[in-house]
């Protein structure tokens, strides 16, 4: 499916670019963590009250902190020691941060991939039809797209979730079902509203790119030839226009996965996600404890940054080697 | 002898690319007399543009001048430089390659200025033509301590980022002044642009190709340069416009007495404009002399081939004589120590396997050629067997087929 020339170009660029290797490495790492979260996790991420004897959250390994407790009616200074039981400590309600980190990777990637997929399915046909037919069809379709673009996606997403409600879809976890990790939750939670909403606010970017490609390809000689030989418009769209627009769509999709992960984290930070197993939500949980238990908000953020850096690096690599013309990267 | 404004000795310019080192200009020497129109002619890739850019110090990375000297003779300039850079001065001339970059760059526009092949892409599309010419005027104005002195200067003007930032708010801090703008309009008028006051405020895309080339000439004249380097000045233009631009150059040269270094692949342009000619091949001057020497009595088979490949406008011969073979690879690791033309040369002999030095040729005292035929006559007995190079050479070079060179024809 990928032409040899592109493969060679991808390979050459990959060998030359250290950043591309780092990006692929990061993405594989995050994918690995997300995929095998039930096996890698040490505790059920939804179980709380993992506290020390005095009811304090554990800090990550290597860190201690001082707090005050009431003892015989008096406040006394007291140092909380980390425990090997909880590698990255526990949060304010006593959930295991390491296990939540792994499950947060799942949520981010699920929303990232499903959301992007949905946006591609909505945007690409829309853009191809607008660009291929041109004229009035194009005008009216692109006017709609303009309005969509003309709006801050986060604001739109929050407003939409306000209407839809933060619905979630439980998906049975295959690893737990197969009996590899019995103590873990049986379902993984896909934040359904969030997935649909991020697709709704990003599909326009795919429509724009697909439209541009369709307009360019429409005037190519071989498409004119196919038309003159009586090929139907639908056939031309599917056999000629669609395959040719794939390269820029793939590059844009990669970058959009990163943008959607960021958007998802913002939505869950604001509390619109519907699941508590999300990096953004964990950051919000930790915000109030910034001055004492700073790691609660810090660790999930590192997860977001690493995942997004990895995907962005991959996107840069694809773009440098495939060289499509995409304006407006990182759709907002 | 002492009236050579520009003398290039053993200049080598190389490009250090990922695939190997390219010898764009190799051991090149030439002498340009004051007030001459000196033509450098050759195929694309023969190194003529790189030579010109080496003089201006405009060779872009990964290219670098690796060897040689470029002597510029201007009394005032020599006096200025003598104190700070005594090593650079010799016999009244200055070796530019011995000077620090800033001093060399100060010569841009005042000692040397340059016009380029494609005027449309050589102007900045988002500034008016007048503004861009006025900049060139202003640079010189600022470099001059004394505005009446109009000869070569030692240093360029300083302009800081702070001043630029201020200029976006305060018009008085702008680089270009009213006086420079007025001078730009005069220059436009001088090169024959109608309505110069109005045209100065237009953008490059509002000009035709020929008009824009005139504007570029005006820009190059802003600093009253000693040497105007014209790099393929007419290639991008229509034939009728070409003639007008050449006439303009000739006229201006006559008026100002400046020296022109004309770089072209078009022998017709050379014949029309030049007093002296150097023929370049594979980064070297293979033959040089007066126009008559080179055109009427060429020694080097390459020159002969080039001249043969001018289509005869009057149709006397009615056909082209293309030179067989391809331009040679300039990668250092692929160049052998032989005459680089030997593989395409109809008169290649055993001697030619040794790189030829420059021989004096018949004709005027300036006539010289890098070819054994200047000394000996061609003998069949010593000729290399046919197909010698296609076997000996790198396999990639085997596809040499008859290919018309772009030397001439336009």
């Amino acid at each position, binding site marked *: 499916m990928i032409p040899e020339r592109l493969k060679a170009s991808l390979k050459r660029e990959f060998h030359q670019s250290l950043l591309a290797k780092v990006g692929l490495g990061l993405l594989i790492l995050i994918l690995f963590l997300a995929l095998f979260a039930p096996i890698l996790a040490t505790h059920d991420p939804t179980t709380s009250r993992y506290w020390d004897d005095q009811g304090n959250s554990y800090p990550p390994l290597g860190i201690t902190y001082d707090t005050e407790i009431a003892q015989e009616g008096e406040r006394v200074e007291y140092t909380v020691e980390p425990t090997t039981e909880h590698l990255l400590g526990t949060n304010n309600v006593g959930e295991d941060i390491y296990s939540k980190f792994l499950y947060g990777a799942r949520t981010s990637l699920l929303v990232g991939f499903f959301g992007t997929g949905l946006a591609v399915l909505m945007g690409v046909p829309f853009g191809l039809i607008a660009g291929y037919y041109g004229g009035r069809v194009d005008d009216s379709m692109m006017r709609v797209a303009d*309005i969509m*673009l*003309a*709006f*801050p*996606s*986060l*604001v739109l997403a*929050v*407003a939409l979730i*306000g*209407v839809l409600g933060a619905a979630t879809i439980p998906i049975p976890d295959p690893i737990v079902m197969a009996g590899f990790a019995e103590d873990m939750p049986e379902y993984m939670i896909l934040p359904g509203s969030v997935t649909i909403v991020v697709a709704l606010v990003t599909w326009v970017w795919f429509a724009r790119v697909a439209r541009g490609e369709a307009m360019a390809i429409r005037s190519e000689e071989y498409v004119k030839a196919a038309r003159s030989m009586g090929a139907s418009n639908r056939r031309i769209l599917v056999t000629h226009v669609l395959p040719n627009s794939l390269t820029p769509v793939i590059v844009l999709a990669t970058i959009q996965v990163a943008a959607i992960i960021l958007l998802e*984290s*913002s939505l869950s*930070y*604001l509390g619109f996600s519907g699941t508590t197993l999300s990096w*953004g939500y964990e*950051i919000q949980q930790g*915000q109030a404890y*910034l001055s004492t238990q*700073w790691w609660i*908000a*810090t660790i999930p*953020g590192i997860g*977001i*940054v690493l995942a997004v*850096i990895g995907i*962005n690096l991959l996107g840069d690599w694809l773009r440098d080697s495939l060289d499509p013309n995409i*304006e*407006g*990267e*990182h759709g*907002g | 002898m002492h009236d050579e404004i520009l003398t290039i000795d053993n200049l080598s310019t190389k490009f250090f690319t990922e695939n190997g080192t390219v010898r764009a200009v190799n051991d090149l020497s030439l002498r340009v007399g004051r007030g001459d129109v000196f033509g450098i002619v050759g195929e694309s890739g023969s190194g003529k543009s790189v030579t010109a850019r080496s003089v*201006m110090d*405009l060779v*872009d990375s990964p290219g670098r001048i690796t060897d040689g000297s470029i002597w510029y003779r201007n009394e005032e300039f020599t006096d200025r430089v003598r104190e700070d850079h005594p090593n650079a001065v010799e016999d009244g001339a200055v070796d530019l390659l011995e000077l620090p970059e800033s001093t060399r*760059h*100060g*010569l*841009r*526009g005042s000692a040397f*200025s*340059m016009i*380029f092949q494609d005027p449309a*892409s*050589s102007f*900045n599309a*988002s*500034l008016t033509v007048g503004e*861009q010419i006025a*900049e060139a005027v202003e*640079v010189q104005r600022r*470099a001059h301590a004394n505005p009446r002195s109009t000869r070569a200067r030692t240093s*360029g003007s300083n302009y800081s*980022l702070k001043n*630029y930032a201020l200029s976006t708010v305060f018009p008085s801090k702008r680089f270009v002044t009213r006086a420079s703008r007025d001078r730009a309009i005069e220059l436009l008028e001088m090169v024959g642009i109608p309505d110069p006051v109005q045209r100065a405020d237009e*953008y490059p895309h*509002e000009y035709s190709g020929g008009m824009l080339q005139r504007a570029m000439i005006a*820009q190059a004249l*802003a600093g009253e340069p000693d040497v105007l380097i014209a790099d393929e000045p007419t290639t991008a233009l229509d034939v009728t416009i070409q003639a007008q631009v050449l006439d303009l150059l000739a006229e201006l040269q006559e008026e100002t007495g400046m020296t022109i270094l004309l770089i072209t692949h078009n022998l017709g342009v050379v014949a029309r404009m030049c007093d002296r000619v150097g023929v370049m091949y594979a980064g070297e001057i293979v033959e040089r002399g007066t126009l008559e020497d080179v055109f009427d009595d060429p020694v080097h088979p390459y020159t002969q081939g080039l001249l043969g490949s001018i289509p005869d406008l009057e149709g006397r011969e009615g056909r082209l004589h293309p030179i067989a073979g391809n331009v040679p690879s300039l990668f250092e690791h692929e160049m052998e120590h032989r005459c680089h033309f030997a593989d395409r040369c109809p008169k290649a002999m055993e001697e030619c396997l040794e790189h030829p030095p420059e021989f004096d040729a018949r004709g005027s005292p300036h006539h010289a050629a890098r070819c054994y035929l200047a000394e000996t006559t061609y003998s069949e007995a010593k000729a290399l067997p046919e197909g010698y190079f296609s076997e000996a050479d790198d396999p990639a070079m085997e596809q040499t087929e008859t290919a018309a060179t772009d030397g001439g024809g336009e």
Partner: protein
Amino acid sequence: MTFGKFLVRRLLQGVFVIWGVITVMFALRAVSPGDPVNLILDQAAGEELRQQVREDLGLDQPMYIQYLDYLQGIVVGDFGFSYQSSRPVLPMVLERVPATLELAFAATIVALIISIPLGVVSATRRNEPADYGATIGSLVGISTPNFWLGLMLILILSVQLGLFPTGRRPVAFHDSIWIALTTFHLGPLITWFHHIILPAVALGTYFTALITRLTRSGMIDELGKPYVTATEAKGLPGVLIRYKHVLRNTMIPIITVLGLQLGTLIGGAVITEIVFSWPGLGDRFIAAVNNRDWPLLQGVVVFIAISFVLINICVDALYAKLNPKVAAQ
């Protein structure tokens, strides 16, 4: 002349966009579940009172009448009353606009001041340490969520080092300027400045990183063009070549991209305000969504749309000014 025409066309388009946003918001309210009366009245309220409220709000009318009423109200500046606080929506929105604008402008200024020189240096010193630093820094910058960055800034610079306040806006910019001008008392202005630095950096980082990347790649493309050599040949000082010629041409495509990114700036402002308790439209907006306070939500969203459209028109005008080919058309 042509510029005026251009402006009128863009304004008409803007009105169209705002109308679209209003209509979408109205449609969302129409399909959203739940009876607004429940949001206003106590559970215990009697049916008679409910009916009364419904009539007052016009909710008993057919949809198209409600829509027309709503449109008419917006045209005359009447956005209705907040369900939650019963205050008129318009002042509730207007009193928050300055804080959001301050933040967005401050972030833009931070971004432009840092990113453009950084991009230029990065492009002109390719593959030197400065370039590597800028490249990696901007990669991290576009990959970091601004709310988390804000928290980290608070953690390190406020909580640990105590250099900056953790948030809030004790004084408005216009008030502090007024005080500075009338009483020559700079205290409030300094306080304002001290409080806005962290939010502005948190919000501006993404744009700093984005513009640095765009400037770098655009400059590299542009530096390879023939006019740059021609400009060097004139003897023009390097500063002018880089900034007046090359950067100017680099900015033309960048401005288009930035126009498309304005939405991200406004969305980012909403969330940054939440992190830093900055009293702008952001927390009104989130509160309106959480309380399903439709009139307030619509008011905020329409205002965001209006400011977005206005900024976009300014960007387009700048684009036309920089690019003579557009102005000529």
